[in-house]
């Protein structure tokens, strides 16, 4: 379920945006998703079913937020930290190439 829900690029982009930028309404998500509001709503429904997204009702609006804890069973978090440093090393490598002798 988790894998399937994140396999779709549009859905993954919505999820990543909620991770990065925090709570958003369907309207705010649609503005940059490149697809129509019903399509965004459908993707949010699938993410919700997978436990990756939580919807909070406020008046007529629903605010969606990412539930990172849903990913926990899938990953060893220390391997993710190693990934953080690996990508920093990649950027260090690029910088060293650019630096003068």
């Amino acid at each position: 379920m988790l894998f399937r829900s994140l396999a779709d690029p549009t859905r993954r982009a919505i999820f990543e945006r909620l991770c990065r930028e925090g709570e958003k309404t369907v309207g705010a998500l649609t503005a940059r998703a490149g697809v129509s509001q019903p399509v965004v709503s459908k993707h949010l429904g699938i993410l919700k079913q997978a436990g990756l997204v939580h919807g909070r009702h406020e008046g007529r609006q629903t605010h969606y937020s990412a539930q990172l804890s849903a990913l926990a069973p899938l990953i060893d978090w220390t391997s993710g930290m190693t990934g953080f440093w690996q990508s920093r090393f990649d950027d260090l490598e690029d910088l060293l190439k650019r630096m003068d002798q």
Partner: protein
Amino acid sequence: MTETSAQTRSIIVERQFPHPPERIWRALTTPHLIAEWLMKNDFEPVEGHRFAFRATPIPGWSGVTNCVVLKVEAPRLLCYSWGDGTESESGLKTVVTWRLTASGGGTLVRMEQSGFRPQDEAGYRGMSRGWPGIIERLEAATA
């Protein structure tokens, strides 16, 4: 990665670079150069100096990592504490150690971040830059 004790864990990343230790040392200790590969900072290569790394804040994390320079031995050993932005009891209290060893006409760079406790998983979740990699692996797993 190795277990350093029953309670804490370390992350170790090593890479061989075709550059002399002096050049890598400059990249590790010059603020505007550090900003190019790690984060914005007010680092100074002086033992006892307090500084901070600043990333874009995200929900649940201020983006600030408070640090203290612990050891400076140019051009081979650099050590600083790597805490969280709140310095609270629950915050991350790790130590980052860089070792540069001249080898094969270049330099072996070894980074060890030690002192992760089981409850530091929350701190890890705040490090946004780890996430794209995880998402990529999820993608690979589903391909």
